[in-house]
């Protein structure tokens, strides 16, 4: 088990963003738990096969779809797609605008997974790497959240990993050089949020998908996060 979302997170994103990082860390932990309350997908639409129309995909629509189908819309399900790139197999590419994570495979192919990403103002971009991973990571709410939320207070010392844990089944910790960026690719206890802009910058996947991705990647894998909307540019 590994602790996560500790507000005293020791890493640092370079270029004088310490204050932003501290604020993001707090918000990150809060939004891991509260994300769906503020969920929306900026401009995402899905094709409704019954009406043969494109319809806006927001949190209400996402919940309805998941309740009916017990899975995300087909476009957000794991699948092999053509992906023309010179990046090495094993590289992870995150397209937050489209809500897809690609794991590069040989032969101009990639495994594509659906993801939930940062809501407006919480997107970011950069070239980072998987610094470490954890199975069923512990989630630790920040002190501010513990102070105001009795439900969070009972997990002040850390919520053990499990199906109800906001981080889900696995977490891939993204590093810039040797520094933890505070961003993670992780599972979720709220699978209907895939395809939405819900987080404070983390990339969430359904637990089956993060388990699959975790089994395929190596620590040190390159991760390219493409610009999402008016995202923060973290540099390379």
């Amino acid at each position: 088990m590994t602790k996560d979302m500790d507000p005293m997170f020791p890493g640092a994103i370079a270029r004088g963003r310490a204050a932003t990082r501290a604020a993001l860390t707090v918000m990150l932990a809060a939004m891991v738990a509260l994300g769906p309350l503020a969920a929306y997908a900026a401009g995402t639409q899905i094709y409704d096969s019954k009406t043969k129309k494109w319809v806006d995909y927001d949190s209400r629509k996402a919940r309805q779809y998941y309740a009916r189908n017990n899975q995300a819309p087909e476009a957000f399900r794991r699948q092999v797609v053509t992906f023309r790139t010179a990046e090495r197999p094993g590289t992870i590419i995150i397209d937050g605008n489209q809500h897809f994570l690609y794991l590069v495979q040989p032969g101009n192919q990639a495994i594509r997974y659906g993801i939930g990403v940062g809501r407006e103002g919480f997107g970011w971009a950069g070239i980072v790497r998987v610094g470490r991973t954890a199975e069923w990571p512990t989630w630790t709410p920040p002190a501010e959240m513990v102070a105001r939320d009795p439900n969070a207070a009972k997990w002040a010392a850390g919520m053990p990993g499990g199906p109800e844990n906001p981080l889900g089944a696995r977490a891939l910790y993204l590093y810039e050089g040797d520094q933890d960026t505070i961003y993670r690719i992780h599972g979720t206890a709220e699978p209907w949020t895939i395809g939405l802009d819900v987080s404070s910058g983390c990339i969430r996947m359904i637990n089956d998908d993060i388990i699959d991705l975790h089994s395929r990647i190596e620590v040190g894998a390159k991760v390219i996060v493409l610009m999402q909307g008016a995202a923060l540019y973290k540099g390379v």
Partner: protein
Amino acid sequence: MPGTKLWGRAAAPQVGILVFLGLAAGCSTTPPPPEEMARTVTETAPADLQLMCASAAAAPSGVDSAKILPTGSRRVDARTFNVDLDAGGRKFACLIDDSGTVTSVQPA
């Protein structure tokens, strides 16, 4: 205006055909394949095309392609995307078509 009236009568069959064809086209709209049943209102370049632009910018920028990051993209026309790139702090603009052919990389 007699001319207008004449045009209206003469064009009626054609208009009817056009309306019929329009309705028929609407009825027979082919749904996208399952993997394409999601989209964004603001269309950005596919991820692989953005990265192909980053690779193509290595030579003109003199920067290792591993350090060039797409920072934005948009559709220019039916076949072409513009991709903004950051190459070690220098900005470049790349044009690429949907087949993956880079048509230009220039300082922005």
